[in-house]
Each structure stands twice: as C-alpha cells, then as structure tokens.
C-alpha cells in the first residue's frame, strides 16, 4: 500500500479517536446528552471499510456512527453540532448522536433500533439494482444485531435478488453486557451467511490495512454485479456500551489485553513508523537479502515522530474547532421541527 494511503488511514484513525474522546468530555460537561455510543477501539473497521468505499456508495449505519459519518465527508463541525443538538448539525438537532444523516453524502442514517440497518440497506440496494448503477450499499451492524429477524430476512432477499450490499459486521463481542457466546449459538458471524449462499469472510478488525484490502476486493466484485457479500471484522470497544454504561461486566484482563496489544491506532502508528533494520537484523538476514529487507521496511511507510506529532495536533485542532462551531450554532426552533416533519408535504389541502 502506498504511503499516502497509509498516512490517510492513520490520520483518519487519529481524528476518530480524538473526536470520540472529546465527545465523552463534552458529555460529562453536559453539552451532549442522551445515549452516546463511542467508537474507541473499533476505528480500524470504519476507517478501513470507508476508505476503500467509492464516493458513490451509500452507507447505512447504527447508533455508533459518528466516525462513519465523518469518513463519508460530513464535517466534524456538523457531527459535533448534531451531538450538541444544534441547528447546524447534520440532522439539524433533531436526531442527535444516534441519528446522523446526510443525503448529499449518501450517508443514509444512523439507526437506533437494533437490526434496522439490514432492511433499509437492502431497499437502497434494490433501488440501485433497478437503476443498474455501478454502486453499492455498505450496511454496518453489530454482533448483537444478527439475532434480529431482519438480519436473516434481509440476507435472504439480498441473495435471492442479487442485490449490491456489503454487509459489514463490527464484531466487538458484546451486545451491551452480553458476551457473544452467551447471545449466539454460532459465534462466528461470517458463518451465518452461508445459509443464504452469501460469500463471507472473517478479518482482523484491529488491522486497518487488512480491513481496507478485504473491503476493496469485496466491493469490486459487488460492483461487477455478483450480489451481496458479508465481512466480519473482529474488534473490541474500549469504553462501555454507551456513556451510561461503565462496562464493568467485562473481565479486566480482557479489556487490558485488547488495550495493550491491539489498539488499532497503535497498530496503525507502528506500521507507519519508519522501521529501519537494526545492525543485528541486517546481519541475521545475511548480505544477499539486505536489499529485500530494506524494501520491505520501506513498504511499511515512512513517518517520523515529528510528523506523527504534527498529525496529532492537526486532528486536535479539528476537534477544537468542531466544539467551537457546535457551541456557537443556534438551537432549532419548534417551527423548524414542524417544518422537518412536514418536509414531504406538497400542495395537498389536508382538510
């Protein structure tokens, strides 16, 4: 993978992390209320998938979707303003954290009822297929959502009619407090797709490069008209289910294990940092493979710590600006709310 792409992935992940941690802070301050589901730990999934997606693809997501929205080009300003319930938010303060929408960006919503993303995505795909466009829908869902009837019903229809949907499971192993082995008879989500003859793979969702590559391959096939596919990304959320949930049901060792070894942001940084071979490594590899080793290291990308710090302060600034924007934005009025409810009313005389 080229250095530019790697840098882009890294920056997206850094922004995702910084944005979400700041959202948590703003929630504590009282600027954000309601259910706030955060994404730290899972960044590699959205960042890998949505960087591989084409600009004309549609995205349907869950209530844990701030990062997905930003990756589709909704500005951090607009996402933060929505979290603050302000008029300049991408849903004009009506939806809040769980219901980000942007029609222009083809971000078809954050849905709060578990299992809703399947039929909505399938319907969008149906419409694409009718128009025979080279486009796809990316449908995000959690491991807990696959036990909702809509999962099975939608996979069946999507396969039956060969619809262009990429089903993307963000398997963080938990349905709030219930661990996957306690909620699913088959804990490998990808295996469920075979009941509908949908090609499916399980991928390390902590590794953004793998996520990116798997998604790109799947989408190419979907654009070619081969029907739906399913990708399961194994990941982990570092925080509780939402800000209302301390997450105390998870064994400490489990949380620590994921934090220490598998923080996807750390992996992305590590993979992008320059790794010149040490003298020992070079001599161990033998003289004839020095060039080979160097080029392998080279492929991992070059990024020094100064550059990394620059990236960090860049995303910190973006997040600061987003908060300032959200604070300054006005509140929507009741008249606004009424207008949104009636947005599809034409000239009909109702009475």
């Amino acid at each position, binding site marked *: 993978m080229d250095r530019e792409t790697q840098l882009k992935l890294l920056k997206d992940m850094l922004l995702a992390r910084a944005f979400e941690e700041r959202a948590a802070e703003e929630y504590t301050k009282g600027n954000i209320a309601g259910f706030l589901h955060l994404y730290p730990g899972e960044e590699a999934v959205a960042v890998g998938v949505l960087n591989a997606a084409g600009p004309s693809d549609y995205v349907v997501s869950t209530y844990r979707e701030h990062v997905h929205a930003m990756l589709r080009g909704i500005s951090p300003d607009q996402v933060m303003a929505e979290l603050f*319930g302000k008029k300049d938010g991408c849903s004009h303060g*009506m939806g809040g954290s769980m*219901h980000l929408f942007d029609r222009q960006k083809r971000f078809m919503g954050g849905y709060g*009822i578990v299992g809703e993303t399947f039929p909505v995505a399938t319907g969008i795909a149906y419409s694409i297929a009718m128009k025979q466009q080279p486009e796809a829908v990316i449908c995000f869902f959690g491991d*807990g*959502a696959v*036990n909702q009837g809509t999962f099975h019903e939608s996979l069946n229809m999507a396969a039956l009619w060969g619809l262009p949907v990429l089903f993307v499971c963000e398997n963080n192993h938990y349905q709030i407090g219930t661990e996957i082995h306690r909620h699913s008879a088959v804990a490998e989500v990808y295996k469920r797709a075979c009941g509908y003859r949908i090609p499916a793979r399980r991928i390390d969702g902590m590794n953004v490069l793998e996520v990116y590559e798997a998604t790109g391959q799947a989408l190419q096939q979907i654009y070619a008209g081969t029907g739906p596919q399913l990708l399961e990304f194994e990941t982990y959320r570092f925080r509780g289910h939402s800000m209302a949930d301390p997450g105390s049901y998870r064994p400490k060792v489990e949380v620590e294990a994921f934090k220490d070894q598998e923080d996807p942001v750390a992996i992305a940084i590590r993979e992008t940092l320059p790794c010149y071979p040490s003298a020992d490594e070079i001599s161990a590899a033998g003289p004839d493979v020095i060039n080979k080793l160097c080029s392998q290291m080279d492929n991992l990308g070059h990024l020094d710590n100064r550059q990394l710090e620059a990236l960090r302060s860049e995303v910190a600034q973006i997040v600061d600006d987003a908060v300032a924007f959200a604070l300054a934005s006005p509140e929507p009025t*009741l008249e606004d709310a009424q207008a949104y409810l009636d947005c599809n009313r034409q000239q009909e005389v109702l009475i």
Partner: protein
Amino acid sequence: MAEEMFYWQALNRALYQQMEADDSVFLLGEDVGLYGGSYRVSEGLYARFGEWRVRDTPISEGSFTGLGVGAALLGSRPVVEIMTINFALLALDAIINMATKIPFMSGGQFPMPLVVRTPGGVAKQLAAQHSQRLEQTLMNVPGLRIAVPATPQDAWWQLNQAIRSDEPIIVLEHELLYFSKGEVDTQVEAPPMHRARVHRQGADLTIVTYSRMLQVSLQAAEQLSAQGIEATVIDLRSLRPIDWDSCVQSIEQTHRLLVVEEDSSFAGAGAEIIAGLSERCFYLLDEPPKRLAARELPIAYNGTLEAMSIPRPADIVAAATDLCQTKDAI
C-alpha cells in the same frame, strides 16, 4: 411497615417475592441476568435463581416475547422484560396476535400468565426512536390489561398482581420513574390492580392522569393551589380497564375535567379517557373536558424542544386556569 425505596427496588422486590414463592416464574430479556437489567430491576436475581429462571436473551424481541407466550401455554409464568417500549414494536405480533388471541381462538383452553414489563415515555434526550409512548396502541387490544404504576408502592403492588394473574398483562413503567423514591409497605393489602387512586382532593377540577404525568400534575396542583384553584388529582394506575367510577365520583364534586397524558392527543390514551368520561358525565360537566398532551411531533433530540414537546407543570397550570375561568362567574 413502610420503607422508603426506589421504584426499581420495589419492582425488584416484587420479582424476588414471586420467584421465591413460585418456581414457575421466570424472567427473560436482554441483559436481565448478569448485568441485572438496564435499570437494575433484576439485580441480584441471576445469582439467586440461576440462568434457567433469569435468562439473558439475544436481541430477538419478536421471538423471545413469543417464547414467553409458548411457555405460558404450559403454565409457566414468564416475565418478559423489553428493554424499552420502543423495541416492543418488534414484539407486537407476539403480544397482540398470539398472547391475546390464543386463549380466545382455542375456545378458552389455555391460560396466558404472561407479563411484559417495559418502560415507555420521554426520558432525557434519547431522540425520536427511543422516546415513544405506545400505550394507545396496546389499549385497543381486547384481552390485554395494562398497568401503569406511577409510584414505588404501586410498582410493588401491581407487579405482584400481574405475575399472579392468568391473563396477559403489560406493566408499563417509565424510564424517569426508576430512580424516583417513595414509601412502600409490603405488608398492607393491595387495592384491586386496576383501581384508580386519588392523590389529592380539591373542589375545583379533576385532573386525570397516569404514569410519570402524575408527578407533573401534582406539582402543577400545588402551584394552582397557590392561585386559589384546588385540583383533585387522580392516577388511573391502569389503562385497560379504566376505573371510570373513581373518576365519575370526583367529577360529581368538581364538574370540570382535565386529562393530562404524555402521548400525543390524536387518538391517544386521553381520547379514550375523555370519551369514556363524556359518556358518563356529560351533564355533570360545567365546561367541555380538556386534554393536555404531547405535541403532534416526534420527540426531537434537542433538549429545549424535547421539554416543550410534553406537558410541563406550567402547561397544566395554564390549562387548568383556563378551564376554571368561569368558576367565579357562576
């Protein structure tokens, strides 16, 4: 002897008592077990009764509520917790098409001791999909009973009664009531499950309400009292059946009726309450009865708009003052 406790604790005690007394009572729902329930209602029960009696379910509302129906056919007493009423929309087939129809369609062959507990209502900035009030949808189902406990004491009484009943019962709780406190006397005999309760006596008007709007109405009644208007506040405690007699008795004294509800007024719970009381009290009323309900809007995430969307004490005061305008003139 009365003891002060949270609403969730009263429910928790009731579950404990019924599960101790009867092995056929079991709980199921998302995170009711290890986690102890989203609002702590089933706290400690998993440890005490084990996984067969306290079952953590997948996110499969339609099927685990239907499972409750099936188990009830064999005489088990399932208490299904649906995390919030918004998700009960996915379980309506089990509740409406199965639970209330099987005993009837089979010509009276089966018991249906199913309890579905779920909180409804507007909480705090949970946005449109998580702020629904669906009592009106359930009220129109013959064979279904709906208890709406508004205080810890009622929560204790009514959940105990619901579990003992052989009919399907919805215990409609409220997200903002779980952490409200009140006296609970676990020894005193319970009133009939569907009997309304007069919380405050006043001669000028009757406010009929239920669930969390009881608290809001009682606050308004205090403010009204300071203005010289004395309201009777009646908590219905049940939306099907409705205790008409208690309401009629009050209207005989006050001749004015204000219904306060958290759902929207169009075809809402208040529509039934007003219709039922108009039929019974038409000639008793000095003024047309009035409804105060939520706006005809989904609930916005924005906190200011959310607060403006459902009745506040000031709205009740204004409506009651309006209704009593002619009081002095007569």
